[in-house]
């Protein structure tokens, strides 16, 4: 039972941290993509969308290689910051953040792009900066997009498997998340125990999506679009 709770808690912890980091990273990123034109924009958009089409093991493999002390970044991290990312929680957090990036950026970018430009014009002519307009006008009015990004990222991270297995392995309390435990238990033909984890993930994802639809409907009726 203790192991069961520890695994689910670690899974939730990873999902929460990934979502939190991605909210902070994705808002400026999506803002830049939605409101500015620059030459390398298609390259950045392609890089963000890459995890949607790339097998998780490919991304996991390259991250494993990059974090390895044999290579420049891994060596630098270990030598100067005394940090090793492979097979640690920090490592799977970075992998998970990169892998879930499109699930957060895309809904927020769509929210920005569909935002009525006349409201931005009104705010600017009232003397308000881009930053004030973002915080006080845009973000409160694109709550459905933000909620959608948050819930999709959280749910996606809860069920992440390939990337985590590649970078994190299977260390209890450190990198052993629910999806990896399910895989292990099925390999050992322990279907009953695997079902306990699988059912928890299934119910959690289902409840989360219901909450998203209910919340976004309520928010829509408040914000007019």
């Amino acid at each position: 039972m203790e192991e069961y709770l520890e695994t689910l808690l670690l899974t939730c912890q990873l999902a929460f941290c990934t979502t939190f980091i991605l909210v902070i990273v994705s808002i400026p990123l999506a803002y830049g993509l939605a409101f500015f034109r620059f030459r390398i924009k298609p390259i950045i958009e392609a890089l963000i969308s890459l995890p949607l089409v790339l097998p998780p093991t490919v991304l996991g493999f390259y991250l494993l290689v990059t974090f390895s002390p044999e290579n420049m970044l891994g060596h630098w991290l270990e030598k100067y910051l005394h940090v090793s990312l492979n097979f640690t929680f920090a490592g799977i957090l970075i992998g998970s953040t990169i892998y879930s990036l499109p699930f957060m950026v895309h809904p927020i970018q769509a929210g920005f792009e569909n935002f009525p430009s006349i409201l931005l014009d009104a705010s600017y002519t009232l003397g308000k900066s881009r930053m004030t307009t973002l915080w006080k006008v845009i973000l409160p009015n694109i709550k459905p997009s933000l909620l959608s990004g948050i819930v999709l990222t959280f749910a996606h991270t809860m069920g992440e498997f390939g990337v985590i297995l590649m970078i994190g392995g299977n260390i209890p309390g450190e990198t052993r998340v629910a999806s990896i435990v399910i895989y292990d238990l099925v390999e050992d033909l322990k279907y009953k125990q695997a079902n306990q984890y699988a059912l928890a993930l299934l119910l959690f994802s289902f409840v989360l999506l219901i909450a998203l639809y209910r919340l976004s409907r309520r928010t829509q009726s408040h914000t007019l679009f």
Partner: protein
Amino acid sequence: MIDLQLSKYIYTSEGDQMLTIEMQIETGSVVALYGSSGVGKTTLLRMLAGLTKPDDGHIEVNGQIWFDKKKGIHVSPQKRGVGMVFQEYALFPNMTVRQNIEYGLADHRDKRWVDELLELTDLTQLSSRKPGTLSGGQQQRVALCRTLAHNPSLLLLDEAFSSLDQATRTRLQDETLRLHRHFSLTTILVSHDIEEIRKMADVVIKIEQGKIIKQGKPADLLYAPKKYHHIELTGILTKVETVEGGCILTIHASDSTHRIFLDTASTVQNPTQWQVGDSIVITLPYESSSVRKL
């Protein structure tokens, strides 16, 4: 004094064209921009507000340069002190009426100023309502109020009253004129409504094909339809019928027969004043006439 000389290539449904405008506007006046759709009136307002960058030229307002292509100056909309009221109101849906107005408040202004504005525009009762629950006229008043909270020196109205019914429009026009005088503003409005221009503007500027083609006082430039425009039909009275509450006249005019009911109040005199064979003139006033293709 506003002195501007601007050119901008614009893309419209009527085709692409070069907007070339040169004009001077007296401080404190109300100037109306008039002309068919797509000639660049809104683009001109947007260039004044700093929302659209001209291709060439300069804008100087009371000695301050807002835009100068040669010197590479383009003052941002935030720093121009312009207030713009949009046709679509552009109220922030997440904020109440009061919050919308407070958002427009210039930093140094006391919040009591919001109360004054709410009172001035008769919005105090609605201050805690969200824009989505207000009528078009009320939303436009909030938009005007929010713009004034910013304390602008130049007020731009982009067809601000066009989507309102006649009664609300008249009331808001009066209110805007009162506020224009009260705050000593310079106001530039875009309008297709001749009556609105005649009522509000000191100067009217007609723009066609990207150029100013006429400029002057509305009374000199605009046709006064109510004064001269009516339709007259001349015919012969062929029948008079007395009915309950008045009489019906049958008149033959222009190869067609018309039956017109006159109530007792409008006939005043005895219906027998009408004699078959009389020559009759039917006058249709401008207000109630309409024209359609057969």
